[in-house]
């Protein structure tokens, strides 16, 4: 082994403390890259395979009722590659273990070949449909698991007002329900409350009075059709309008797909931004470290050159430091990345259901991570080497010119300066004289703190979102969907149900809203006068009364349609007489999930030309009498779906905590390593540079704590400066995030509490102090007798 390699190894071992801090930061950068990249790729590939194999559809058209002939006409269009008709109904079902009625979505599938059909299903357990019985059902795997339902169990469904017993012949998953939610309004899957039930095609049509008809058309388009899907759907809408087109959904707006897509695009952004930030910090810290190292080895560099080593040889030798650090950081990072990917895949498994969704090692990502880490390491080292190499050997061997002396600006404030004591003087001078190092420290502290701040703010925002949507806007205890539109009489009946303290009607009408060339299809919610169980709110949380005429739009919807209060929009119901009306926008409210519009119930019914109608009910329920209510609802023939808001809230809250532990925890730990690492790194460099000075103080009789106090003060100054910058920086980051997440599906409110600021400061200080403890121990174990002998 060439002797310089031996020197390299010994030098590395000698500065192991400082190197470890850099390796840790480097490792986290690479780890973030490998971990996020691996998760992203596995998720993406699982999705692509799944979609391809089980023929995930490009469009869904839900209708009131359409004859087969209509679907056949659509199928003949050139851009339609293939399509399938089916019947879809939400039903209430009796699940043995559930104290409350559960909503299930009944979907018809071919009795054979259901894996190969469009939106095919992948059987997880059981043998699937038999040939001899009709009353068979295949359940969503998660739903069956959540309720402890086994293959062979019996399940009761109310179909077309008749209670029927079904045999569970299998459990399955499907590309339509990778994210098992009812629709875009559901934030998080809850298989205890919602599941899909697949029944035989022919049987379902018979029982549900859909012989030779369907209420949903779903299909795949040719590549050309896929590019113009909106235009295709608009034409399909015209073709099918006689049959009551309730909704036209391209793949991009399909609920499960949207959630998956958003997660993937978020992941793609994080997978570039996060590693970028960490590696940049690592390069900065390493750069400072190398600058010191090269400066400390100035004489050695000069000597090597005097002996006849070429610049290249010396450069390579010093680059070795960076390369080794990069390599070790990269290897660490691969380990961290594998752990991170495994944890993320485990987390995703709770939300996303794929036939094969296993975590696997991605060698190319690891290799890239390693190379990038090594490159950053070498880059960080390069500047240090070049600074010394520029010198002629004779110059390099001369003792380093004394550190820039002279006063720092602060010293002109004599009265203040004199109060500070000499150790603070030393700390201040050192901070201001090593500007690059101090600035890097300030920057790292600011960045780390800002990331922690962002993580905490994100958590608060989620909590606020859930509270806003599920406590403030929706205030009911139980929501009940009706099978068909019902009259006022149903409301009076509902008030008689056991335990009901208050009942309010809702009318949901799916309409196209158009303003200029912009349009959106959504359900307008009609609220009765004096409603209190749904309380739309302004951004500041104040409840908004729904005026007796006109529409109240949520902020995002108004933005998408480019309308303001006072403007007119065109409203066209998707069923009934479908007359276009121009209605005024009379108010604006805020919401963070989906797109909503509200109107007075009577006004909305009037627009439809119907007298007071309703299609769902909201209840406030006496908690003691809930069980009675659930029992009564089960035998209510008009009831279609039921939502117990307390369960929804609990599920969301639980899931929020579980996922936050991973994502927010990881962010805080990563940021903590930056704060800890950069603080410790500069303190250790400082100790190395000032052995003589610190040792002299020890000889003079100062204790280790007093000597460490100088370095701690210095670290504190840098940290405090970083803290000042952290919050503006953090604010930029969270507001950027809020802007990035301002989507149709959901939006992130910007919630900044004073508490969060304090928590952030507490957290960041914790990591910083941890580093100071190590600084203290280093100073205590300083061999100061040796130190005063050191030749500068």
């Amino acid at each position: 082994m060439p002797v310089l390699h031996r020197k390299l190894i010994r030098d590395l071992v000698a500065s192991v403390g400082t190197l470890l801090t850099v390796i840790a930061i480097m490792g986290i950068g690479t780890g973030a890259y490998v971990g996020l990249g691996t998760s992203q790729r596995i998720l993406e590939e699982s999705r692509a395979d799944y979609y391809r194999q089980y023929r995930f559809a490009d469009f869904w058209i839900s209708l009131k009722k359409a004859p087969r002939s209509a679907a056949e006409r659509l199928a003949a269009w050139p851009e339609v590659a293939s399509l399938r008709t089916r019947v879809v109904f939400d039903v209430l079902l009796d699940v043995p273990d559930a104290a409350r009625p559960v909503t299930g979505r009944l979907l018809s599938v071919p009795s054979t070949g259901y894996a190969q059909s469009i939106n095919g299903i992948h059987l997880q357990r059981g043998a699937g449909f038999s040939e001899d019985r009709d009353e068979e059902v295949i359940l969503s795997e998660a739903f069956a698991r959540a309720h402890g339902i086994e293959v062979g169990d019996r399940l009761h469904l109310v179909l077309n007002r008749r209670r029927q017993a079904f045999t569970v012949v299998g459990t399955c998953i499907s590309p339509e329900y990778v994210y098992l939610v009812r629709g875009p309004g559901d934030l998080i899957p809850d298989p205890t409350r919602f599941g899909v039930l697949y029944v035989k095609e022919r049987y379902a049509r018979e029982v549900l009075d859909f012989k030779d008809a369907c209420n949903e058309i779903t299909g795949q388009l040719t590549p050309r059709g896929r590019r113009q899907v909106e235009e295709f759907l608009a034409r399909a809408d015209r073709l099918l309008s006689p049959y009551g087109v309730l909704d036209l959904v391209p793949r991009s707006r399909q609920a499960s797909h949207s959630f998956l897509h958003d997660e993937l695009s978020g992941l793609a952004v994080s997978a570039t931004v996060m590693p970028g930030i960490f590696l940049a910090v690592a390069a900065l810290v390493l750069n400072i470290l190398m600058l010191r190292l090269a400066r400390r080895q100035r004489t050695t560099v000069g000597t090597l050159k005097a002996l006849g080593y070429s610049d290249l040889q010396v450069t390579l030798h010093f680059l070795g430091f960076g390369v080794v650090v990069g390599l070790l950081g990269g290897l660490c990072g691969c380990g961290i990345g594998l752990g991170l990917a495994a944890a993320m895949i485990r987390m995703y498994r709770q939300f996303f259901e794929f036939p094969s969704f296993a975590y696997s090692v991605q060698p190319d990502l690891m290799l890239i991570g390693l190379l990038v880490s090594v490159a950053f390491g070498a880059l960080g080292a390069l500047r240090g080497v070049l600074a010394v190499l520029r010198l002629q050997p004779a110059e390099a061997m001369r003792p380093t010119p004394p550190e820039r002396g002279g006063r720092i600006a602060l010293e002109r404030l004599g009265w203040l300066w004199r109060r500070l004591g000499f150790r603070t003087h030393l700390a201040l001078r050192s901070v201001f004289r090593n500007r690059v190092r101090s600035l890097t420290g300030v920057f790292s502290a600011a960045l780390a703190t800002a990331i922690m701040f962002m993580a905490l703010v994100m958590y608060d925002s989620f909590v606020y979102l859930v509270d806003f949507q599920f406590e403030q806007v929706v205030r009911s205890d139980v929501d009940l969907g009706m099978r068909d539109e019902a009259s006022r009489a149903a409301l009076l009946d509902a008030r008689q149900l056991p335990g009901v303290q208050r009942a309010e009607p809702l009318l949901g009408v799916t309409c196209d809203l158009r303003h200029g060339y912009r349009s959106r299809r959504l359900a307008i919610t009609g609220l009765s006068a004096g409603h209190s169980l749904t309380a739309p709110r302004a951004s500041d949380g104040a409840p908004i009364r729904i005026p007796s005429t006109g529409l109240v739009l949520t902020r995002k919807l108004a933005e998408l349609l480019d309308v303001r209060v006072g403007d007119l929009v065109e409203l066209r119901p998707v069923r009934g007489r479908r007359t276009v009306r121009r209605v005024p926008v009379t108010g604006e409210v805020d919401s963070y999930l989906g797109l909503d519009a509200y109107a007075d119930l009577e006004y909305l019914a009037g627009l439809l030309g119907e007298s007071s109608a309703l299609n769902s009910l909201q209840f406030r329920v006496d908690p003691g009498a809930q069980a009675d209510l659930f029992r009564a609802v089960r035998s209510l023939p008009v009831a279609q779906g039921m939502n117990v808001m307390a369960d929804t809230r609990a599920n969301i809250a639980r899931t929020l905590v579980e996922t936050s532990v991973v994502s927010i925890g990881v962010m805080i730990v990563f940021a903590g390593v930056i704060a800890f690492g950069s603080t410790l790194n500069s303190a250790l460099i400082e100790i190395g540079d000032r052995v003589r000075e610190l040792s002299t103080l020890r000889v003079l009789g100062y204790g280790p704590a007093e000597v460490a106090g100088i370095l701690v003060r210095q670290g504190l100054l840098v940290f405090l400066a970083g803290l000042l910058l952290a919050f503006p920086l953090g604010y930029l980051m969270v507001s950027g995030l809020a802007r990035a997440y301002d989507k149709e599906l959901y939006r992130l409110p910007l919630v900044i509490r004073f508490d969060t600021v304090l928590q952030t400061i507490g957290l960041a200080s914790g990591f910083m102090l941890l580093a100071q403890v190590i600084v203290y121990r280093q100073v205590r174990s300083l061999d100061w007798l040796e130190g005063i002998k050191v030749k500068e």
Partner: protein
Amino acid sequence: MSETDPILRLEGAGRTFRMGEVEVTALAEADLAIRSGEFLAILGPSGSGKSTLLNLVGGTDRPTTGHVWFGDTDLAAMRDHELTLYRRRVVGFIFQFYNLVPTLTAEENVQVATELVGDPLAPAAALELVGLSSRASHFPAQLSGGEQQRVAIARAIAKRPRILLADEPTGALDLVTARQVLSILQGLNRREGLTILLITHNPALADIAGRVVRLASGRLADTRENPNPIDASDVTW
């Protein structure tokens, strides 16, 4: 001038340093020939330009005026990599503060030099020459100043240089140790005919050289031939 050809020749070689506004002339235009095989001492007080001259000769610095001839090539006109080769093959350096690599043992420090050239002395043999075989695996911190300087000598001679440049090699040593180090140098000159350039501010040391050049304020003041140099072991101050 002597009958022997000069191995190195300074011709109007000068070096000035610019420190912001002021220019410091470390060495005014100097003419000096170093003969092959001679033991030449450069004597002068601190700041007189001795190290500057040595650096010009050793190829660790470039003159700002004039030429440094090595044979018929001018060091002043050499490119960086040529200068590197010159340092590698022609000169051996001994520094006032030894300049050993602290994280390498004595033997490894010699190896740092031997790995550079094709036909070096074995590191062990070089250490043997300076009487340090028993300390081969010691780190610089475990050696006395004199021992460190002997390691530095071993490192310099192990490359088999054509000229040995020693800048105050005994500056930090006591008399007894200094005699030891100087004896080694004198022995190398006498036995192997190695050209040696010794720099010192101590007139007593100059007596061991065959010729003494005095420097004062960056100028060559005078040259004195010393036909009967004293033995290094008789040096005293």
